[in-house]
C-alpha cells in the first residue's frame, strides 16, 4: 500500500471509532488527540482495527508513532508495503 492509501485506511478507522467527528479538516501534522475526542480506549481501537484488517502487530512501545496522521502513515508504510490496497 502506498502512503496515501494508508492515510485513507487510518481515516476510515477514525471515522468508525469517532463517528461524531468531522474529519474533513484533519491536520496531518497535529496530534489526533489535539483535534478530536480520542481517549485511550479509542486509541486501542486503532491498533485493534489494524490488527484485524492487516494482521499488523503494533507493540506498545511503538504506540508513540501513532500520534499524528503523518507519523502514523510513516510508521505503517514499511509494515504495509507488501499489502494490496
Amino acid at each position, binding site marked *: 500500500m502506498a502512503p496515501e492509501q494508508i492515510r485513507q485506511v487510518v481515516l476510515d478507522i477514525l471515522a*468508525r*471509532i469517532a*463517528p*461524531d467527528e468531522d474529519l474533513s479538516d484533519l491536520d496531518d501534522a497535529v496530534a489526533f488527540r489535539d483535534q478530536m475526542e480520542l481517549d485511550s*480506549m479509542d486509541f*486501542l481501537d486503532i491498533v*485493534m482495527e489494524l490488527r*484485524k484488517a492487516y494482521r499488523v*502487530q503494533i507493540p506498545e512501545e511503538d504506540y508513540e508513532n501513532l500520534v499524528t496522521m503523518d507519523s502514523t502513515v510513516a510508521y505503517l508504510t514499511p509494515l504495509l508495503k507488501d499489502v494490496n490496497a
Partner: protein
Amino acid sequence: MTNAEMYNSRIVITGVGLTSPIGNSLPDLRANLLAGKSGVTRFETRYMPPVLAGVCNFDALRHQKRKEVRRGTRAGSIAVYCANEAVNDTGLEWENVEKDRVGVYLGITEHGNVETENEIFEIGKFGYDTSVWSHHHNPRTVANNPAGEVTLSLGVTGPHLTVGAACAAGNAGFIQGLQMLRLGEVDMAIAGGVSESIHTFGIFASFKSQNALAHHDTPSKACRPFDTDRTGIVVAEGGAICTLERLPDALARGAKIYGEIVGHAMNSDATDFVLPDRNRQAQCVELALKRAGMTPQDIDIVSSHATATEQGDIEESSALAKIFKDHPNVAINNTKSFIGHAMGAAGAIELLGNIPAFDDGMAHATINLDHLDPNVPLTQIVANEPRQLDSIDCILNNSFGMLGINSVLIVKRYQD
C-alpha cells in the same frame, strides 16, 4: 415508627421513561395496549432460523452520541434512553439537582451474554486468535454496565448498581430504589429494569431446547398466556425506568405524582431451577398486601407475570385464584401477550403500562386468549378487549423468575 417517619417513608413515582416493542413513551405504550396492538415480529438471530421477538425502535441518538452507542451496550443504550426520558419527565432542572444524592438501581435478568457471543463470533473469523478480542469487552460486560452508563450520561455521582433477579428484576429494581430512599442513602432513585436479551442467540436456543420457545405463523398471535394453544415464550427487549422520591420531597417541589408504592415483597421458592411454585408466589403476594395494609379486595388490577408456558401459567393462576377467590371483580391482565417477555424489563414495563389506568379507568386486556386453559382457575382475566372499571385505585404487579425468585409490587393512586 413515628408519624413523621412514616410520612417520610412514603415513596412516589415522579417521572417515567420507557421503551417497548409497542411504544417509546408511556402514552404510546398505553394507547397500543388499549388498542390491542402486538409488537411481536420475526427476528434474525445467529446460528438458528429466524425467531419471534419483541423489538424496540427507540432513537438512541436522542440521548447519546454515536460514539457512546458504539462504545456501550444495547442494555446501556436502553437504560440511558429510559433514564433521560424519566428525568426529563420530572420537570426538574437537572443541572440544579445534587447528583451525589441520586442513585441508579436497574433490574437485569442477565448481562454480558450479548457481548460475549459477539466477541466469540468475531474472533472466529480470525481462527480464534484472542489477540483480536476487544478491549471493550470488560467494561461492556461488567454486571453494573447498564446502570453505570446511566451515571455517565446523567452525571450521577451517587451509588449505582444492577439488581440481578432473573425475570423478577423489574420489580426488584423499584424495590431497591424504594429501600435506598427509605434508608436515606439517596434523595432520588432512578429505578426500573432493562433487557437486551434478544441480541443473544443463546436465550432463544436455550428456551428452544427447553421446549419453551413460542412459534406461530402469525407473529402477533404467538404470545398466548392462559390459552390452550400457547407454545411458549416470546423474548423481547425493552426498558422502563422511574424516578422515585420521598413523598415530602415530591410535594415540596410540586411534582407530578404517578402513584405511590405502598406494598412490595420478594421471596424464593427454594424448590427448582426453572419450575415455579404457586405456594411461594401466593406468599409473596400476601406479604406485599400485608405490608400495604390491604386485603385482596383493595386491588383493582392484577398485572400477571404469565409467560405463556403451561406450568408457569397454571402455577401463577392457581396462586391468584387462591388469593382473589372472593374478589370476582378484580381485573387480571397480561402485557406479555402484546410484546413478549421483556425479561429484566418485563416487570417494570408491565407495571408502568397499567399506571395510566388511574386516569383512564381502563384495565387493558390479555390478548390472544381464545381458549382459556381449563387448568387456569381464574374467572377475572380481561380477555382480548379492555375493560372499563368503576374506579381504579390499586394495581398489583407480579414478576417471577428462574431459580425461584418472586417479586410483587403494589402501586396506589396518590391520595393525601
